[in-house]
């Protein structure tokens, strides 16, 4: 039995690497991807293109604006002088926020009246707008507190004023660098794509060319054929994940706090599911084009509903329960936890058990289907 598996393994490897460009596709492109997407996968908002519309132009308005521009976030890109320009700036996307101070701002502050500052946001990207609003509120809030303190001092209230001092601490990702969160996700999406596509296409190809018949008439048993067909892709995927993890960690200085061995072990478990799905797709498709389309039909929802870019907790309940059968969802938590939290099996078993269950189901199902399609 092992001899037969060995010979089909050798045949597979030969076939995969016969096209020299395939070597590049398999080993070099994941590295390019991890670098490019590692840079791209970043939601830290450190630069907010700002337009300034100061109708007041008093010491007070300039002080507030100074506080905005001194924060490293708000970078004044434009100074505008009328309402029409304000519309243009937001329409064109030249600025994502306009700080609009009306006439009378300084006078009101000096006269102890309520004063207002208007912030016009480009809300198109609601998430970014939300973060920017948080920044702006903090700056204005601080200015208000300083003003009140000044006034208190002027009125002769010199004693201590009670207040709450917020001391926030972010665990696991102290500087709140979003790349640390997204990079492990990028690694898992690359591995998913590669293993799915390679396994599904390779098997369908044999069907399409007609060489599958030749394999069937050989003394190979179906299970040996499956192992021999899938094992090379598992090996390739493991090599890929080691390569891109190493490069990602060294290039981007993303912390890898957990056990590397545990990461490889979980990857093995995860590959069971993706290769199983690849095998399944190959049994339902008769052409490579169909296989490709089916891979996408699985891949896109799997990525989108994995918590990779969109938190699962935000989804409607019905979709949340739907994600329970998404293997990438579990693997995403596992790879992120190993990277950032450094936790081990004692925490991650909750994720690994469903992953194993899905893997076993998928692989048995597709093995049965595969045998049928041979028979």
């Amino acid at each position, binding site marked *: 039995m092992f001899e037969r598996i060995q010979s089909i393994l050798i045949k597979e490897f030969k076939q995969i690497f016969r096209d020299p460009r395939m070597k590049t596709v398999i080993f070099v492109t994941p590295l390019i991807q991890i670098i490019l997407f590692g840079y791209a996968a970043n939601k830290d908002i450190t630069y907010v293109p700002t337009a300034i519309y100061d109708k007041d132009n008093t010491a007070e308005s300039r002080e507030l604006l100074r506080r905005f521009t001194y924060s490293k976030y708000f970078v004044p890109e434009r100074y505008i002088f009328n309402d029409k320009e304000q519309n243009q700036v937001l329409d064109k996307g030249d600025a994502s926020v306009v700080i609009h101070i009306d006439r009378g701002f300084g006078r009101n502050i000096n006269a102890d009246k309520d004063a207002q500052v208007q912030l*016009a946001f480009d809300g198109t990207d609601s998430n970014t707008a939300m973060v920017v609003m*948080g920044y702006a509120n903090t700056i204005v809030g601080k200015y208000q507190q300083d003003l009140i303190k000044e*006034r208190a001092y002027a009125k002769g209230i010199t004693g201590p004023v009670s207040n709450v001092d917020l001391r926030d601490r972010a665990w696991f990702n102290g500087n709140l660098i979003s790349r640390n969160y997204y990079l492990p996700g990028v690694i898992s999406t690359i591995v998913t794509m590669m293993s799915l596509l390679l396994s599904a296409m390779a098997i369908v190809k044999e069907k399409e060319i007609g060489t599958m018949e030749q394999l069937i008439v050989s003394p190979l048993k179906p299970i040996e054929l499956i192992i021999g067909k899938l094992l090379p892709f598992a090996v390739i995927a493991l090599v890929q994940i080691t390569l891109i993890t190493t490069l990602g960690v060294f290039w981007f200085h993303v912390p890898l706090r957990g056990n590397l061995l545990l990461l490889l072990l979980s990857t093995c478990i995860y590959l069971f599911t993706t290769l199983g799905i690849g095998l399944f797709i190959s049994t339902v498709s008769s052409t490579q084009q169909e296989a490709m389309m089916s891979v996408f039909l699985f891949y896109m929802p799997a990525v989108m509903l994995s918590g990779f870019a969109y938190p699962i907790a935000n989804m409607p309940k019905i979709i949340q329960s739907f994600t329970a059968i998404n293997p990438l969802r579990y693997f995403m938590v596992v790879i992120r936890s190993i990277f950032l939290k450094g936790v081990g099996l004692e925490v991650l078993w909750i994720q690994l058990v469903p992953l194993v269950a899905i893997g076993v189901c998928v692989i048995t199902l597709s093995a049965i289907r595969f045998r049928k399609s041979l028979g």
Partner: protein
Amino acid sequence: MIKQRLKRIKAIAWKEFIQIERDPRSLSLALGIPIFLLLIFGYGLSLDIDHVATVVWNQDASSKTSRDFLLNFKNSKYFKITGYTDNYRDIERMINNGDTMMALIIPKDFSHYIESGKTAPLQLIVDGSDANTATIAMGYVRSVVSRYNVELLAETFNSKGLKPVKSLDVQPRIWFNEGLVSTWFITPGVIAMIIMIISALLTSLTVAREWERGTMEQLISTPVKAPELVIGKFIPYFTIAFFDLLVGLIMARVLFGVPFRGSYLLLFFLSALFLTGALSQGIIISVVAKSQLMASQLATLTTLLPTLLLSGFIYPIFNMPKFLQAVTYLIPARYYIIILRDLFLKGNGIITLWDEALFLFLFAFVMLSLAIRKFKKKVA
């Protein structure tokens, strides 16, 4: 001459239509995938962060001051207090397991500090793994605390017999996406992504199949010329992708309530440019790759992943390092996504969109002529 040309193009297009019709599964996938994806993404994906799971450890639980302070969190839709605890170990466990996002720790002498005019330290522990969500959640806490501080100051003023404190208001005006609904932002991006993938994949694979099976040689031996062949192959897929666009548009409007504020005519015109480029790109891929396996790999690498990650669909382009921003100029989906979002949400016209339109035109022109040239070379 031209008449004959058109006749040949028509014949090729007709043959292609028949071939697609014969493969109903591929066709239903090409039409079904967009509907399926739009449905789950439109309903499922959201970046609106509220009900942040919070655990509270109130070390000063016996005081009214601390409980009043906590009311600010309880009454806010942005927080959801999932439990109370009285030790660090619980907090650590819950954050490790992902059961909670934040832990709020009120110190033992909270009321004492507040009542005697001192500064009370309030501890907040946040799971920073998802930095984006953490930043927004921390912003919520900060604004609760700063509002509370202003109230405290007002009380101090009152107690000294002074006028209540003046306020400095931020008046946020949100444009284009007034309710900050993330679905409005995501859906146009999803449409662009689907169109890009469907068009590039579909063409690259069908053409690669003809090469693989050798039927391309048969076509070449007929009097059909290369440009005619390219355009003829093009038409059916153009039709399918355009249909997908219409479906996406209707679903966005009707199911997800995304407003459409621009001109439909402009949308169709610019979409046609984008489709021409994307389909030509598919043909180029199929010519460069000899096999379907290679074609699928190239299509993923050059269309799917860049469209997903470098187009501004998920990650804002202005945050990327400069060299990567330069790379995004080569990703046609970048322009198309801007156009879709502008047409849907901003209602901009050609006056503001002319540079994006120009880039799409260049993309379509370069890709189409490249496709024809590559094709000619390969045939010769």
